[in-house]
């Protein structure tokens, strides 16, 4: 069980939105984490590697800043076994690049732009995620 946190989640969501708006105003780009993370590796098509590294470093540094401010690390409960994490990681990486986006690029930025492509992608990944979890928790 995790507690229902509508206020904190709404505020956190708004912060994610502000970050996406800031990236658009600074670099004119969509804040899609899979797109940014996958381009940390060669071949490099543009001169934006340092900016991407900085964005990912910011994501990774967030728990440390949270620790400094609140005195504790964010709660993290992982139910999956190591082999499952490996396989799922591989396919989350593959699928997000293959489908040109993940929860942030399609689910937040794409829906905000009313992109039908992103709305379709979000419906597909939400549906498959819900069905998968149903099978994992209630069928197997």
């Amino acid at each position, binding site marked *: 069980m995790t507690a229902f*946190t509508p206020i904190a989640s709404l505020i*956190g969501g708004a912060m994610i939105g502000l970050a*996406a708006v800031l990236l658009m105003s600074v670099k004119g780009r969509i804040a899609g984490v899979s797109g940014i993370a996958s381009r940390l590796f060669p071949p490099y098509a543009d001169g934006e590697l340092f900016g991407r590294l900085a964005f990912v470093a910011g994501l990774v540094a967030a728990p440390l800043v949270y620790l400094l401010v609140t005195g504790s690390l964010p709660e993290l409960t992982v139910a*999956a076994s190591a082999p499952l994490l490996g396989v799922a990681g591989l396919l989350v990486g593959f699928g997000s690049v*293959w489908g040109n986006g*993940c929860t942030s690029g399609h689910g937040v930025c794409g829906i905000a732009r009313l992109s039908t*492509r992103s709305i379709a992608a979000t419906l597909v990944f939400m549906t498959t995620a819900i069905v998968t979890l149903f099978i994992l928790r209630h069928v197997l």
Partner: protein
Amino acid sequence: MSFVPVLLQFVVGLFFGLGLIVAGMSNPAKVQNFLDFAAIGTGGWDASLAFVMAGAVAVTAAGYRLVLRRTKPLFAAGFLLPRASAIDARLMVGAALFGICWGLVGFCPGPALTALGTGSASAMLFVAAMFAGMLAARWLADRMTRAPA
């Protein structure tokens, strides 16, 4: 490369990550409890993530409208918005694979990278595998574009 835009992108990433933490989305258990729609009847369902999505989409939609009125971004020649509009098999397969494995473990790319900062061994394993999967997808996409039709 100039320093200011790189620093700003660090701030964007940090703010994004803090948003994920405040929202509770960096915790895979919370993500999975949202995706568990069968628990709606039994009281175990955590609807919080719908609020994350609502907050993020509302602020992004409003903010993009303001920002895109400008002729160009602060530190780039122009806005780079995705132009693809086709809802094709590749999009569907990618999104489906992504969704299945997101449901299995509760990690997607942003929260996994943020969870990495807590020193979690699970996040390290997931992120290493995720980067390998991303490279495989780029390699395969590149091969398919080069192959004669």
